[in-house]
């Protein structure tokens, strides 16, 4: 096979390979907000349920960042979650964070509810208002205890 034909085929091959990579990058994957320009704030929860590292942080349903790290506060026995938020999104200092679930079997994520404060969150701040994950067993047992407590009263 002569040189020109060979070069043509190899050129076509490399082009196809890069086209596949571009397809995987653009159509299949998306760039994460992590590692770009981000700032991190902490939030501590009584219970984070099934929240995982790299779970999305959403505000009004829009992904604004990712969960960076989860650790246990050894004194207060609370879960401390680091939220890596994209630098493009600024939130007031009295923003609340809650652990929410998308769908019945869906993944858990952090929902941010912006407050009305003038000041904006900065790197290293701690969110004051947090709401823990809803644990199904606790919800059910609470409901059952309430039922059990109210039955004798109504029978009376």
């Amino acid at each position: 096979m002569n040189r020109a034909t060979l070069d043509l085929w190899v050129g076509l091959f490399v082009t196809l390979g890069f086209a596949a990579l571009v397809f995987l990058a653009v159509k299949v994957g998306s760039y994460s907000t992590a590692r770009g320009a981000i700032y991190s704030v902490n939030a501590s929860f009584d219970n984070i349920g099934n929240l995982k590292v790299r779970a999305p942080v959403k505000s009004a349903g829009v992904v604004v960042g990712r969960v960076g790290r989860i650790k246990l506060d050894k004194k207060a026995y609370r879960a401390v979650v680091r939220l890596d938020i994209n630098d493009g999104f600024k939130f007031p200092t009295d923003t609340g964070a809650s652990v929410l679930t998308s769908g019945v079997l869906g993944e858990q994520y952090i929902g941010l509810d912006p407050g009305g404060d003038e000041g904006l969150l900065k790197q290293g701040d701690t969110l004051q208002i947090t709401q823990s994950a809803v644990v199904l067993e606790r919800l059910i047992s609470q409901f059952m205890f309430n039922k059990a407590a109210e039955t004798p009263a109504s029978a009376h």
Partner: protein
Amino acid sequence: MSALDATLRKLGAMTIDGVWRLGFAARFFLAVLRYSGQSFLRLPLTIREIYFSGVLSLLIILVSGLFVGMVLGLQGYDILQRFGSSDALGIMVALSLLRELGPVVAGLLFASRAGSAVTAEIGLMKTTEQLQAMDMMAVNPLARVVAPRFWGGVISMPLLAAMFSAMGIFGGWMIGVVAIGVDDGAFWSQMRASVDFRYDVLNGVIKSFVFGVAVSWVAVFEGYDCHPTAEGVSRAITRTVVYSALLILALDFVLTSFMFRGP
């Protein structure tokens, strides 16, 4: 007692032989890297090898990718619809292809399609004393024959794996969306929401690059090291396929445990 003695001796000889070969292979690898610069000065040699390793493997890679993706579409749908989450089919197809199946299956196919051919070619060159002839003419066979074949494989492999994954996702889409009727928007948007470019796509490319180095190294080494007989060449080809496959699967485990360990 003498039977036991003989077995022990044989075992010892095999161990020493294995360690010796490993050391020789490592030294050979470094020598190939050292003479790569010389071979890059004559780029057409490497381009020719990319043609033989990459372009000629294209068909088997694309067809296998398509079928693997179609099987993933069928099986994934069957499992996911039990949990009422068949919309997540795109995620399952894309992640399993990008992280594992793309690099691994493409690597195995590449080893048996291109690696064996390289071993056969170099082995026959050695058997017919072409390599010695080159040496006599002051042409370094490592730079002239081995390095272009090595780099041809290393360059082709990530591109082939990317095409395999892309083709697989297309196959999964064909079965999931076109044939079964999963929602097209959900398929792509859920996939995009959970596939991360750096974490999933780039790690897959790194994997396929590592596999490319491993397969090409084994292939050129086994060819260069074979016994210069017809039987020796055939054994070398068998060893290339077996060692490459084992190396790919073992390296895949190691790389996965580094890359996707979670938190």
